[in-house]
């Protein structure tokens, strides 16, 4: 199983609110990760109207990479770039990340649609990644 993931939370104005590379980090492909996930947003826009579920499964592919998406009711997109296909694990990962994001929104000092810079959030996402993805 591949051990490299790229996870991003994309706000309603298409800007990334949070992004992290899980597993082996490769600086040289960072822009490619962003490009792939950013391009997949077009397909998320189409796919979210085809399903009533938040989890849209794999919405896009590029070479060996797959992009899974999860759309919250407030239209925030949770995107995961991965190689291995593990539908259930990714769904659980997304669900827990959504809960984390909701807790962040409840923070009165966090303004929605702005960067999430909380170190605690980052730590928890990594814990969830270890729990579900690795």
């Amino acid at each position, binding site marked *: 199983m591949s051990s490299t993931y790229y996870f991003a939370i994309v706000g309603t*104005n298409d800007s*990334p609110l949070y992004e992290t590379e899980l597993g082996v980090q490769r600086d040289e492909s*960072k822009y490619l990760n962003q490009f792939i996930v950013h391009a997949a947003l077009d397909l998320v826009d189409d796919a979210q109207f085809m399903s009533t579920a938040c989890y849209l499964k794999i919405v896009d592919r590029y070479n060996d990479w797959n992009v899974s998406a999860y759309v919250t009711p407030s239209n925030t997109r949770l995107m995961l770039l991965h190689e291995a296909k593990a539908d259930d694990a990714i769904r659980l990962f997304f669900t827990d990340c959504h809960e984390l994001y909701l807790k962040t929104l409840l923070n009165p000092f966090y303004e929605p649609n702005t960067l999430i810079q909380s170190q605690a959030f980052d730590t928890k996402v990594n814990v969830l990644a270890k729990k579900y993805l690795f």
Partner: protein
Amino acid sequence: MPRASLAQKKDFVTKAFCPRILALASAGVQDACTVNGFDSFADLLSPFGQDVLTQITIQDGQGAPYFLDKINVRFTTDFVIEKSPAHSSSDVDSLVKTCAAACIEPADPSFVGSDGVVLDAAIADDISTWAPWYTLFRQQWVGDMQASEHETFMIPVACLLVASGSEADPIGALRALQASAAVQRVLTCGDGGTKMLFYYMLLHDGRDTAALQTIDLQFDQVRKTFGQNSALLKINTNTDLLGAADASERVKISSIWGSDIAATRPLVAHTDTSYGEMLTMRDVAALRDAVKLMLVRSVVPHMQYVIRVLSDQTASERRGITGRLFSAGRRYLNTSSKAENTYVGADGEVYYRHKSPEAMLRRLADSSFMLKDYRFAQSVYQIARRDFQSEKAWMCYAGAQEMIGVCKLLWEVQTTKAEFDSIFEDAVLTYTHKTRTPRRYSLAVRCTVVYYELLKHHRFYVFAPGALLRGPAFSASLTALLNEQAAYSYLKVGSRPNVRKFAFYAMLASQSYQKAGMSDLASRCLRMVRMSLKSRSQEPLRADSDDEKDHGKLTAEIKSPTRASMDEKAAALGAATGDGVNMDKASVTAKTKWAAIDSYINHELGRQSMAAHNFDEAFQYFMALMGDEKTPPKLQSKYLQELLQLFLESSDQPATGDGSNGVVKHTGPIELSIPSIDPQLVRIIMSPKLEGEDAMLEWRLDGSSPSKLSGGSSGLQQTRFCSAGEVVAVLLVVTNPLVIGVTLNNLTLECAFEAAGDSAATGASVDSALDISTVTTVILEGEQTTMVTVQITPRRAGSVSILGAKYLLCDILPTFKSLVLPGRRMNDTKEQRMSVVHTPDTTLGFSVSSDLPRLEITVDDLPDTLMSGSMHRACLRVANSGELPCHSVTMWVSHPSFVGVRPPRLCGDEDEEDTGMYVSWPDVAKHERIQVPNVLRDYSTFVLVGQQADALGSSAHCVEPLISLGPGEAFTVPIWIRGDRVGAHTLSLCIGANSAAAAVPKDLTVMRSRRFEVDLLVTPSLRVNAFVRPSTRNPRERLLGVEVENMHAELSVQLVQTTFTSGFYELVPVSNSLGPRKALVGPRQSISMVYRARPHDMTQSDRLLRSDSPEMFAVRALRQFIYSSEKPASTPEAIDLIYSNNVFTDEGIDCKHHSLQSYIMRSQAHRRRNTLRSGYPLIPDKYHSVMFPLFESFGIDFVLFWSQIGGPGRAGHHSISGIDLGVPHDYLVEGLNPPTEGAARTWLSDTMHDREALIHSIASRSEAALRSERPLDVTIRVDAAQKSGPLYVADVAVSVFNHSWRYGYQFTLDLLSPNELDEFLAEGARMDYSGSRAAWSWLGETSYSASVEPHGLTVLHARLSCYAPGTIDVALWRLQASASMEPTAVPAVANSRNLDCVLYPAQPHFVHVGAI
């Protein structure tokens, strides 16, 4: 080179797979073609093979009729199977480059606007216009395809043999052509049981007029010889060359071939070639007719015949399951047949021999396809495909799959995706992966191109990206071409262009273009990416997030002015420095919130701009790269190195002023984001060597703290001023956002200078007016923040504003950092509210004034810790280092009760010895009367230099100011700081100076000021408490006890002296036994002292009623304030204070000394102000000083002087101000009575309410104070007892004193017998009476009725008898008093309940009776 105006997509496919006709011409014909500019006869006929209107009904392979509207044919001059070698990647690259070069400058496509992608244009415009080089490529690619063994499209279906009538033997020439090698090669390939069609044509050259006579005869012979497939063609009838009668006709004729060549062979440049010089329009018509005749009469019928024959021959193959079984049985059972039908080609692929059924099926399908019978052709392809697959003839299989897909898209448009898309995918993958022929990639590309064209025709763009991305990637340029088309396709998918997908594939295309060395197209793609992302970032938010939309709008409003102002300022700077740098970075660089994407785009565009020697643009891209702190360290280092390299390269380039060749030398400093210098953290420090804050402050001289300029009142823009020649330090906080270290060299500031009185600032004046220091090297490690100080020394008067910082990054790159901030947001007018307007920022600037004092002010020995009460000496030194005399120096202190100031003393003037705070004096009188001013002033401001002003008259007691301070002169001011209150305090000390010779400071004046602040911690040392007891000796006396407790754990103090100050009382110690030894207070010890407070002069009981008393002044002032709303103009008279000293040591302390006197007065004023502020909140602060005196007559101030025993020898004093003896003083209520005259007649309603509230509050306060006080005091004095029989009889004088000076009292005094005491216990009489009730009793009259005047004394006489000598408690009486009131307007609430009261003794009074 004209752009290719190619046919529609569907026609492109049909023309790509159209029938070929081999056109062979004799030498005479060749000559007739050459004179017209054609290389061959096929070129002559080529335009007339396009879209030939046949308009005939023909039969398909199954005999069903269908209408053939038009047909395309291509004329070829030769035929070779696999004549051309396989395409190599370099060939493809060169072809793509040629196609790109053939197009005009690769401008951005039409859908890319200045603000991003124009969605309407993206939807409406044709894809082919966005990348015309792709159109050229696909035409050239498909047009160059040669015949292959797996298909028959390229094999000529007919052979056109042409001979000229000018030849001696045309028939022989035709026979020779028929026997040529090319014909034989066609025959060997086309032998499928049918014969090849030969079409003979006799050409008459109009130039040969001699042959005109015999041409018909010759044609007859040709027809007789070769049959009906013959034709006569006459051309070159334009023999009148010199006449050139109709030039437009020449152009028209030439354009026929020109446009055809542009369409079929777009890369061949023929712009200058003129075709058909000898041809006329009649010849053109003849050529068109000849081709049409050939097609209609011969070629199409022949192809129909071929189809019919092949259909018959392959009938068994096509006959359903039976045929298939037969075919399968033959295939699996008869091995010989398989060997006969197939062979392995040179490329290792399995092919079918021409006579094999499979080859015939393919030929049948191809022929049907060429005659546009797609339905039948598809069915035949499908039959053949099965055989090809089973035989593993993958080349043939892939070809059949390709054609099946084409047929489906040509006639079965409604088919589902799974069919044609999977078929094409299978074809491409089979070509690419299963075949081994070198041409597999070429065929796969052809398949991809054809499929893509058909998808475009049917607008099935959703399949296009997948189809294009499946294409073989054996060449970078080809990959780029296909990725670019895929990107464009995403703009056409669905109802809304997928811009983000487009951006991604455009980026991939750019990478491939770059790899192929096509940097222009790579840059173009990246620009498209940048613009598309820009449009995404600017796209309005969804309608369901109104809040976010509003927020975004608001944010944009907030940010835009900042950027606008920054850009404007930067542009202005660029114009000023003449560097010509385009500062509009936002329009060039990528600015999305996807940091890595932005970095990549900017880096790539920067590199490409650098390669193109477009250094200005490259600089902007690299500068944008530098701002991202999230960039990984490796990339940061790389970017920085490349930026420096860019600068070095640009410096090496010769400068061209106009930049016509795209090379513009970069000379001026560029604005870079590293390191970051926050303008809001920049500090301008005047006189950096001195402590304290330098500023221009407004002094109000009313005790309030000097404040910063409000702007409006002073009219000054700047808040910082300095004089010429003075050093100004600018403190920059420099942060390196990168994780790699950088160095800054030659760091200095860019400033603008505006000379005083000169509106225009010029660059030359800046250099001459300012001397700006340079920091040689600043080393910044990764993510390090450091502070850099740059000094500015102005030379002339004017205004200086800091624009930015200049430095050399890594000693190479001249960089500029703007430090301009937007000013205050304007909100005054409607326009300002509707838009975002800021005032010019003045925070980073200062003014240079020529008449400003330049003082060096230092404060030495400021303490940080003090024991409470102890004194510490600090020193203020002021030196005039300027060139102008200073006429005014004023000091303000925040805690006047903490600070004692001595008169200033010029340096070098040692006449006056600096005495300590306390002046010892051996002969300190016990009681001294001193007259002191009684005006409550502000004691927080001191005039050190300047003429004494009445407003600051307090200085008369403390400071004798200097007249002026000349240049080079200096003076010192001793400052005594005392820990007045325990706790942490922040003392502020502000010294203002002014060169103006204004002797009298006004209420508001602006002075250059320096503010010092010191944190002082006052630790506890002694705690002094005072308590009051009534005296039994005299009703006007009180006993005042003072308890001194040493809170310190180590401090031992010697009490030196106690001093009471009062205007009415004198205090004498009850016992003088407290000598020097007993006046020691050790650690944690306490000591008590008791004093008797009595009126200094008993005869002056009417003191209060005098008009010059402080109390009467307050009453008058209050009455005037309440009833006439006028500020009292008079000041209280001086008061005679009685100093009651009690010295414990040999030498006392001179309290009359002016230094201590002023300090005590300052403390008193501070306390008095606080008391008034809390006691009379409804009276404004500014009225306190004019309505109330500094001292009250009955207040007592206590000062305890002490010195430390051992240790550093500290000395100090503790004080209690305003000790109240508990005697009622209700005089102030009298001020509430309206005056007899001078009252205001009319008041505003608000004023009325205010006054009523004030009256009520003062009356209530008096009532509350009186409640606990006794208006009358009774003392009993017993004379010596006389023995009278068994009894001792003594005369008793009972004194009743009235403390109230408002009311007289009528009272009844009852002397209570001890035996009767129980009757009065219930009324509150003495319950603590412990004396013997039977030992004594009153004699005679015991009830007296009398009256007592206000502040008067009434003495009554009585007698008592005692049965035995001893001590008895005689304090047994009851006083029933009733005030005698006069009518008054004072509110009823002010009439206390003590007007009618019953009083009993509050304490025992023991007397000795008889001799003991």
